[in-house]
């Protein structure tokens, strides 16, 4: 694949140089070195070397803000994805956050000889089945749990919450011991080989499990399975995000919700919102909980501001500025809890709240919870103990 191929595939040659993308881009606003329009122009001018070795190639959040607004329908996120794949062949991978630990972990996981122990967190409180029609895809939560504990993120809570919800609806999902990372981060940082290995493995074990439907609590896993897997592997299942499943089930028998007198706001994750157009289901869910007052941030739904780091890459001062902006926006609504439906968003927002230095920035403290976790905590009678 060459840069020319990428230009063709993504319709980049239709670019009008109108600047709508750069005007919409949160990174461009804070980092003058980055402009989607200039990236595309570089490609059109054949300046492959400059493009491929530019640090900013890995700054794009692939949040789709530009993609939804581009009058020429240039698939800029795909352009970034493919150009990064090219860059990867030349040894470029961006500035990996956490020293590249997460990417390394995904690659280690991709190794065929690995035999994981990823379900040890499963306790008697949750009912899972050895076989069945519904699979719950846990994702990287068992790894994120120890990794991000210190910033107050219990990464397994969304999975646990989702299981509780499914159980309440009478569903005992299958959980696969050798499920692997969906490969989202590897795909978006140019490691197509790693991504393919993971995708092929997941496709094989899902086929073997014989399930008909897969439920996700992670927006990124969901998007990856829905949009990216079909290009490489065949997953013959219905795919659904827990927010969608919940939205369809709010009036169902098993879902007895307590009253929760809280003012909350909802942050649309890019992968669920702009990528897949799923804006209403999470809102339906929240509004169906008795006592909840849902308030909207100034920028919501298609205009939602990205949590500012994608694929744990190029997480920098600019990312922090964007996050602070978003959190202040959330606090401005007066909401007591910021709800989101993607573990990455949760992690990045909590990280932005870490402030241990002598001098501190603006106060951006606000409780952040995953939608599934939040709904699960409202399940059942007053006296029922939560996990």
């Amino acid at each position, binding site marked *: 694949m060459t840069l020319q191929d990428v230009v063709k595939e993504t319709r980049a040659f239709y670019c009008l140089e109108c600047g709508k993308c750069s005007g919409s881009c949160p990174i461009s606003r804070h980092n003058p070195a980055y402009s989607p329009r200039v990236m595309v122009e570089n490609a059109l001018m054949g300046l492959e070397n400059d493009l491929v070795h530019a640090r900013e190639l890995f700054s794009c959040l692939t949040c789709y803000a530009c993609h939804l607004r581009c009058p020429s329908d240039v698939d800029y996120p795909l352009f970034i994805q493919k150009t990064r794949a090219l860059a990867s062949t030349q040894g470029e991978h961006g500035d990996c956050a956490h*020293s590249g630990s997460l990417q*390394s972990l995904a690659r280690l996981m991709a190794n065929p000889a690995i*035999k*994981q*122990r990823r379900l040890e967190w499963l306790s008697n409180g949750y009912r899972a089945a050895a076989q069945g029609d519904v699979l719950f895809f846990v994702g990287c939560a068992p*790894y994120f749990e120890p*990794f991000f*504990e210190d910033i107050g993120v219990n990464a397994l809570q969304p999975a646990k919450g989702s299981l509780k919800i499914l159980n309440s609806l009478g569903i005992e999902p299958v959980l696969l011991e050798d499920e692997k990372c969906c490969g989202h981060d590897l795909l978006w940082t140019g490691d197509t080989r790693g991504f393919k290995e993971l995708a092929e493995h997941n496709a094989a074990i899902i086929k073997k499990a014989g399930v008909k439907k897969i439920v996700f609590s992670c927006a990124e896993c969901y998007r990856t399975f829905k949009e990216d897997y079909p290009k490489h592997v065949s997953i013959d299942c219905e795919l659904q995000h827990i927010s969608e499943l919940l939205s369809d089930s709010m009036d169902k028998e098993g879902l007895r919700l307590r009253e929760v007198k809280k003012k909350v706001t909802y942050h649309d994750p890019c992968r669920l919102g702009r990528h897949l157009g799923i804006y209403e289901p999470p809102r339906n869910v929240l509004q169906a909980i008795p006592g909840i007052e849902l308030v909207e941030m100034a920028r919501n739904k298609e205009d939602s501001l990205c949590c500012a780091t994608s694929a744990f890459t190029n997480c920098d001062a600019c990312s922090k500025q964007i996050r602070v902006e978003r959190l202040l926006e959330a606090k401005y609504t007066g909401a007591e809890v910021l709800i989101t439906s993607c573990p990455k968003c949760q992690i990045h927002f909590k990280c932005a709240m870490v402030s241990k230095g002598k001098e501190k920035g603006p106060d951006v403290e606000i409780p952040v919870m995953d939608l599934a976790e939040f709904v699960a905590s409202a399940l059942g009678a007053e006296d029922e103990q939560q996990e």
Partner: protein
Amino acid sequence: MNVNGFEPKIVAFTCNWCSYAAADLAGTSRIHYPPNVRIIRVMCSGMVDPVYVLKAFEAGFDGVLIAGCHIGDCHYLSGNVKAQDRIATLRRLLHTLGLEDERLRLEWISAAEGSGFAETIKEYVGQLKQLGPSPCRREATA
């Protein structure tokens, strides 16, 4: 189960003030140990980023040894305590990944313990020979 002829590859991150000096002392004392270990000098065990360990497994090492000063004796006061905490978290990740606990080893070896260093290596090589090649290896051969 000792795979025939399998020679484990070990990378050891040793701190400049204690364990690296111990390895040097083993040398000056001519205490022999197996050549399976390859040493990387760091200034402190607290300098060891968990990614070094992950990358080491990616690179095909069968075992990773991190050796620092005894608790209380760290040249930088408590870099070794920090290392200990980080490695505790890392162990949980490696456990979930399915790697055997023995593949990551943390030792405190002082500058005076040349023979201690050699013994540790001998023991570790023997242990890894029993354990077999790392499941993270990409090639079949040692």
